[in-house]
C-alpha cells in the first residue's frame, strides 16, 4: 500500500513536470507580442523592445523556463506584464472564488445525483425510474450557461428573490455571499448532477447485477437494504472516478457560469489574461489548473484504495 502511494506520488510529480514544459512551450508559440499589447496601438518599436527587455522576454527560452519554474517552486508566480502587480495573490484569490463555486456545485450535484441515480437504477423498469431517467437525460442536454440564464431570468429578474450576479467574499458578508452563491452553484450543480446521475445509475445497475447482491438478498435483506449495505460502497468506485474527472472539467468549465454571473473566478482571470496577452499570468493560471486537476486525480487514486480492499494488499 505504501508502495502504491509512492508510485502514485511519483506519477503525480512527473506529470506535473511534463505539464509545466507543455504549458510553457504552448505559451511560447502564442502569437501576439505581450509588450505590444501592453503598449497599445502605435507604440514605437524601440519602446516595445525596451519593454520586452524589462519583462525578460528577450532571453533564451530555456532560461525563461527555468526562471519561471524556479519561481513557482518558491511560490513566486512572477509579476504580470500588464497590470504590473504580483500574480500569486491574484491567482490565489481567484482560485478561492472558483473553488467555492465548484465545491458548492459539486455538493449540489452529489445531493441530486446519488439518490436520484440510485432510485433510477433500482426502479429502472418502473415508471418512476423511467421518469427520473428522462428528466436526467434532459438535464444532461442543457448547457450550464443556458441553465444560468434561465435561473437569472426566473429567480432574480422576475421574482427578485436573489441577486442576478456579483460576488462577495464570505469573510466580508456571509449572508450576501450565500445569496450570490446559490444561483451559480445551482446552474453548475444541476447540470453536473444530471451527468453524475447517469453514472450513478449505471454503477448501481452494474452492482445490482452482481452475485453478492443476490447473496445478500438470500440472507434476508430487502432490495433497498441490500443495495444500501452492500451495493453503494462498491458502486462508489466508478462514481469517484467520474467525480474526479468532473471536478477537473468544472474548474475550467465554471468560466462560462462565471461569465454569466459576473464572478471573478480563475476562469475569467484566464480569459482576461488571454485577451490581454498577459502571458505570464495565463501560464501561471493554466499551471495552477493543471496542478489542481492532477491533485484531484491523485486524491481519487488514494480514495480507490480506501474504498476497495482489493487494492490494499499487494498479494
Amino acid at each position, binding site marked *: 500500500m505504501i508502495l502504491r502511494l509512492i508510485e502514485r506520488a511519483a*506519477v503525480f510529480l*512527473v*506529470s506535473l513536470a*511534463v*505539464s509545466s514544459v507543455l504549458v510553457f512551450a*504552448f505559451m511560447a*508559440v*502564442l*502569437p*501576439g507580442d505581450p509588450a505590444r499589447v501592453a503598449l497599445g496601438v502605435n507604440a514605437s518599436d524601440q519602446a516595445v523592445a525596451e519593454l520586452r527587455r524589462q519583462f525578460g522576454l528577450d532571453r533564451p527560452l530555456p532560461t525563461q523556463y527555468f526562471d519561471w519554474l524556479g519561481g513557482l517552486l518558491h511560490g513566486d508566480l512572477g509579476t504580470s506584464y500588464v497590470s504590473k502587480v504580483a500574480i500569486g495573490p491574484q491567482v490565489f484569490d481567484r482560485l478561492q472564488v472558483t473553488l467555492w463555486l465548484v465545491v458548492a456545485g459539486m455538493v449540489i450535484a452529489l445531493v441530486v445525483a446519488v439518490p436520484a441515480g440510485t432510485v433510477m437504477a433500482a426502479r429502472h423498469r418502473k415508471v418512476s425510474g423511467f421518469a427520473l431517467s428522462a428528466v436526467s*437525460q*434532459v438535464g*444532461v*442536454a*442543457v*448547457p*450550464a*450557461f*443556458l441553465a444560468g*440564464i434561465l435561473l437569472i*431570468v426566473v429567480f432574480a*429578474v422576475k421574482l427578485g428573490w436573489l441577486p442576478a450576479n456579483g460576488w462577495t467574499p464570505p469573510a466580508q458578508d456571509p449572508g450576501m455571499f450565500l445569496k450570490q452563491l446559490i444561483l451559480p452553484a445551482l446552474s453548475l450543480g444541476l447540470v453536473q448532477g444530471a451527468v453524475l446521475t447517469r453514472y450513478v445509475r449505471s454503477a448501481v445497475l*452494474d452492482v445490482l*447485477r452482481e452475485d453478492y447482491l443476490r447473496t445478500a438478498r438470500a440472507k434476508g435483506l430487502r432490495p433497498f437494504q441490500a443495495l444500501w449495505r452492500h451495493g453503494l460502497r462498491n458502486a462508489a468506485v466508478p462514481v469517484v472516478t467520474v467525480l474526479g*474527472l468532473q471536478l*477537473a*472539467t468544472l*474548474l*475550467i*468549465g465554471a*468560466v*462560462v457560469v462565471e*461569465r454569466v454571473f459576473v464572478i471573478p473566478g480563475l476562469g475569467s482571470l*484566464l*480569459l482576461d489574461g*488571454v485577451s490581454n496577452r498577459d502571458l505570464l499570468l495565463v501560464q501561471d493560471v*493554466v499551471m495552477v*489548473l*493543471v496542478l489542481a*486537476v*492532477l491533485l484531484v*486525480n491523485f486524491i481519487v487514486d488514494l480514495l480507490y484504495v480506501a474504498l476497495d480492499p482489493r487494492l490494499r494488499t499487494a498479494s
Partner: protein
Amino acid sequence: MKRLNPSLVAGGVIVGVIVLMALVSFVWTPYDATLVTPASRLLKPSWSHWFGTDKFGRDVLSQIMVGSRTTLFVGVVAVGVAAVIGVPLGILAAMVRRWSSEVIMRANDLLLAFPALLLAIMFGAVFGASTLTAMVAIGIASVPGFARVIRSGALQVMRTEYVLAARAAGRRPWPIAVRHVLPNVTSLITVQASVSFAIAVLAEAALSFLGYGTPPPTPSWGRMLQESQEFLFSAPRLAIFPGVAIAIAVLGFNLLGDGLRDRFDPKLEDRR
C-alpha cells in the same frame, strides 16, 4: 428475441432528423440564412417565417437548418480527431509490452489535466477563433476518453482464445489488431463516439457563448443563442429556438449512445 430499445429508437430518430435537416439545408432553406433584410427584422413567428426573424431580419428557421450543419461538423471533427488518435492509441497500449503501455497511458492521463474548454481557449488564442480549431481542441481533449475505453476493450479481446487461436494460426500482431481487435471494439467506438458527439456540441455552444466558437456569419446554434441574449425579455423566442435545438441534439446523441451501449452490453446480451 431482440426487443425494441426505446433509447436507441429515440436517439436514432433525433439524430436522423438533424442529419436530414443538414442535408436539406444544402439544397433548400425557406430563406437565405445569412441575408440581412432590415425591413423584416424581429418578426414574430408567422406563416411566412415559422420561427420568426432575428435582429438582422434573417429567418430563424433557415438559420437553425443551416446551423445543424455546424453542429454536425463540430461533432464530426471533434469525434474524428478523438477517434483517429484515441483508437489506435488504445489498441496500441493494449498490445505492447507492459511498461510501454504504462507510458502511453500515463501520457494519455496527462492530457486529462487539460480540460476541453481550456484547450479550446488556448488553441483559439494561437490559431484564431474558428470552429475548426475549437473542435480540434475538443477532439484532442476527448482523446483520453477514447484511448481508455478502447484499451480496456482491446485488452479484453487480447485475452480471448480466438486471438490465441489466430496467433497459433500464424497471424502477426498487426494483422491481429486489424482483423480481430478492431472489429470487436467497434461497438465501444460507436458508443464513445456518440457520447463525445454530445459533449462536442455542448462545448461548441459554450465556446460560442464566450466568443471563441464559430465566427459570424456562419450560422451556429451556439452563436444564435449568444446573439439572442439582449432580446431575452423583448423576444425570448430568439433564445428558445436555438436553446431547444442544442438540447435536443445533445439529447439525441446521448440517447443514441445509451441505446447502443444497452444493445452491445454483453451483460444484457447473455439472455439470448
